[in-house]
């Protein structure tokens, strides 16, 4: 393996088990063995840093609304409306600060791998809620169990207020069952489509009756809403409760296969390899669904580093953003661009399109999002303006994002250029390309970029070369 290939396999691991790394981190990692590097990534993520942006109790929002209504009894309708409007605005601000905090945590610090897993689970257990406290609580649940046992994660998410609310289990009652949760837990969260009957869903929904949450966002089992009759699920009969259904889903090896397939598609390659996935699923099942063990198996397998898998993924908008931060050690001074970029590129955290999550892969790319991606580096680093307005969702409660066409960032090019001091001018562009791009780029493109850039200072040259290299199609993959 030549030096550049070796470097790319290291970067491959950084990208898939996180959001890339800076050139100096990559250099350091090249001196240790692959196994040592994998172990160090796991070690770095052994601690958990929870999001604490929303300081109020999960239900504070609801409490505030109720209190406002109560206090306003007898007051004018306009007054109440203004109060509620103000509260809605506060809610929007806190959800965007939660968004900022998560992006910052993905882009900085030692927890990249855990955050990458949390992002994966956020897409797997896709959910939206208006209650910001509930969102933060769920996100921390995903983070806490991200590398633990899948069974614990599944149980925790199933009993989580945001999910119970999103999939209408609060309305799932003995005499009027609501099948939404029972269907999605089978189709999307565990077994996958086609592994159950409609009758299984109906009966499982009965087992989940009575599962709900209180105003503090705690799980409550409301016995009087629970249907304790006999149910027949997957050919077995009993007076099952929700927990029993979750157990049955975990006992079915199809769950291990379904999750392994999703992990393979997200961390290795969208194009599945049945043999590798079968091996993953077997191991996952026999380890009682140990997520860390499965991921370690993937990252230490030789096939993970095959050239078909390196550079095979299109960066999601969030990976794109966090990747920028990791590669360049940069900070977004003004947070508006963080949300704006997510919107124009089509992925806003905490706002998955539906319970199936973001489709990902090629779906990230259309003519508009691609042109925006090609323009973004210049917008970020050259202070160019971007003139793309964001679609309105139609929901009157949604934030109408003000067009912000200049981004303010904190980035030290001298520091960055420092890593390339010893590189001769003639090799500079190619060397930068090896750090920024996960696939080879045509020499003719390198030539054109070199010809275009001329600056008196080394750090300025590095900057201009980087901007051009990031404005390529090759930069869109990792």
């Amino acid at each position, binding site marked *: 393996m030549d030096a550049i290939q070796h470097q790319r396999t290291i970067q491959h691991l950084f990208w898939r088990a996180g959001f890339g790394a800076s050139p100096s981190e990559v250099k350091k990692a090249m001196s240790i063995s692959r196994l040592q590097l994998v172990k160090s990534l796991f070690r770095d993520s052994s601690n958990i840093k929870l999001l604490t942006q929303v300081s109020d109790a999960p239900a504070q929002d609801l409490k505030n609304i109720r209190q406002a209504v109560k206090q306003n009894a007898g007051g004018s*309708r306009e007054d109440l*409306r203004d109060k509620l409007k103000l509260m809605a605005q506060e809610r929007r601000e806190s959800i965007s600060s939660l968004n900022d905090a998560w992006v910052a945590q993905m882009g900085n610090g030692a927890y990249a791998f855990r955050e990458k897993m949390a992002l994966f689970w956020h897409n797997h257990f896709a959910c*939206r809620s208006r209650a910001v406290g509930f969102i933060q609580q769920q996100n921390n649940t995903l983070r806490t169990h991200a590398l633990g046992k899948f069974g614990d994660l599944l149980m925790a998410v199933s009993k989580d207020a945001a999910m119970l609310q999103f999939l209408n289990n609060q309305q799932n009652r003995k005499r009027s069952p609501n099948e939404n949760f029972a*269907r999605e837990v089978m189709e999307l969260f565990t077994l996958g489509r086609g592994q159950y009957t409609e009758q299984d869903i109906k009966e499982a929904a009965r087992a989940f009756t009575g599962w709900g949450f209180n105003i503090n966002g705690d799980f409550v089992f409301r016995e009087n809403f629970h249907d304790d009759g006999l149910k027949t699920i997957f050919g077995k009969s009993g007076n099952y409760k929700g927990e029993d259904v979750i157990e049955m889903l975990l006992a079915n090896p199809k769950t291990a296969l379904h999750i392994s397939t999703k992990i393979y598609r997200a961390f290795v390659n*969208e*194009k599945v390899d049945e043999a590798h996935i079968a091996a993953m699923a077997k191991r996952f099942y026999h380890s009682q669904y140990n997520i860390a063990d499965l991921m370690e198996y993937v990252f230490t397998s030789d096939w993970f580093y095959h050239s*078909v898998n390196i*550079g*095979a*993924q*299109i960066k999601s908008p969030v990976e794109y953003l966090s990747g920028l931060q990791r590669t360049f050690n940069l900070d977004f001074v003004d947070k508006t661009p963080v949300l704006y970029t997510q919107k*124009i590129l*089509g992925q806003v955290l905490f706002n998955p*399109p*539906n*319970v*199936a999550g973001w*489709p990902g*892969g*090629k*779906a990230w*790319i*259309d*003519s*508009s*999002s*691609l*042109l925006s991606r*090609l*323009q973004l580096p210049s917008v970020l680093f050259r202070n160019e303006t971007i*003139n*793309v*307005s*964001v*679609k*309105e*969702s*139609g*929901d*009157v*409660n949604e934030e109408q994002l003000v067009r912000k066409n200049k981004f303010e960032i904190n980035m030290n090019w001298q520091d960055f250029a420092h890593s390339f001091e010893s590189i001769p001018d003639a090799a500079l562009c190619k060397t930068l390309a090896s750090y920024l791009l996960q*696939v*080879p*780029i*045509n*020499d*003719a*493109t390198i030539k*054109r970029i070199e010809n275009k850039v001329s600056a008196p200072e080394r750090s300025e040259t590095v900057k201009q070369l980087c901007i*051009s290299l990031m*404005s*390529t*199609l*090759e930069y*869109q*993959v990792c």
Partner: protein
Amino acid sequence: MKRRTFLKKTAFTTAGSLLIPQFLKAYEQKHFGQKLLNDKILVVIQLSGGNDGLNTVVPFRNDIYYRERPSIAINQNNVLRLNDEIGFNPALEKIKELYDNGLVSVINNVGYPNPDRSHFRSMDIWQTGSSSEEYLSSGWIGRYLDAQCIGQSCLPHQALEIDDTLSLALKGQQVNGLSLQNPEKLYRQTQSAFVKTLTDIPAADNHDNVAYLYKTLAETVSSAEYVHTKAKVNKSRMMYPTTELGKSLNTIAELITSGVSTSVYYVSLSGFDTHIRQNDQQDRLLRQYAEAVSIFVNDMKANSRLDDVMVLTFSEFGRRVKQNASSGTDHGTANNVFLIGGPKRTRPILNEAPDLTNLDNGDLKYSIDFREVYATLLDDWLHTDSTKVLTQKFNKLPLF
């Protein structure tokens, strides 16, 4: 020079001036050589936020309507009557004129089973053409585009959204539609020296996704240049309103009359989420809608294209029958859909008015699945196989 020859010629110079991959050139040759330029055109207007259908097409003889909406019901005397049961909101005066000329179909009670009252989810369902139990990652117009591909060659500009970003409705499995605020802006974006470099030099890597990125960029550049060149042919002589929708329909009209080979146009008007003081807001928006659409229709007529152009108007859901405490309405279910333009109508009101005595938890019940409307437009208007696009067969409606 004859029009066809001119178009053909510009198409080739366009493609040749950039080093567009060979397959695209081949496609354009095929396209211009064989297929007649845009025969039938569909323009979709999406009213985002959930337009209140009952105050749009008003059941002015219905006591329940007036009882449930004491402060927002439209006064019987102001309603623009269509028959002895229903009539338009007075803000739709311009649409009423078109209706009187036999250019409007009103389809009542359009919806789908197990309706979802979330904006996002319901819009998702309408845009993908899915049932409420399935999640599709491609849109119905995107899949229509897929069906127009010749082998691996597809043309994004056959479906155009007038906006900066692309809606799910126009995303296919094989190809995506093109979105542009106006042809000039998109053209400028694709003409930067750097984008040219990227389209000039082939990829050095053979990953599937890298090839896809190269293909998307080449198609974008080629389509942007094609649309931009064509759009110059014909400038509209009509005075369009200066609203967003007015400008967008003006752009669409110029593209149509210039002979751009786009079959589907998509545009949205937002702000219909009227939970509070509905009437001012809805009145303003419906008036904007009616004025822009009526100019557009007249423009098409003046250019002898009206027979070929159909405007579909929908919203992700209607609203509850009963008004709320803030003189607004909350999210509901079934709604009306308009089809404007095309051939003269024999049945301007396609079906029965909403039945306010037979509600589902305070919401209207649907009687026509929205995919029946799509299927009819796909088969009978765009002349494609609706079962391929919608993955199943739907009843067809006697629309035209």
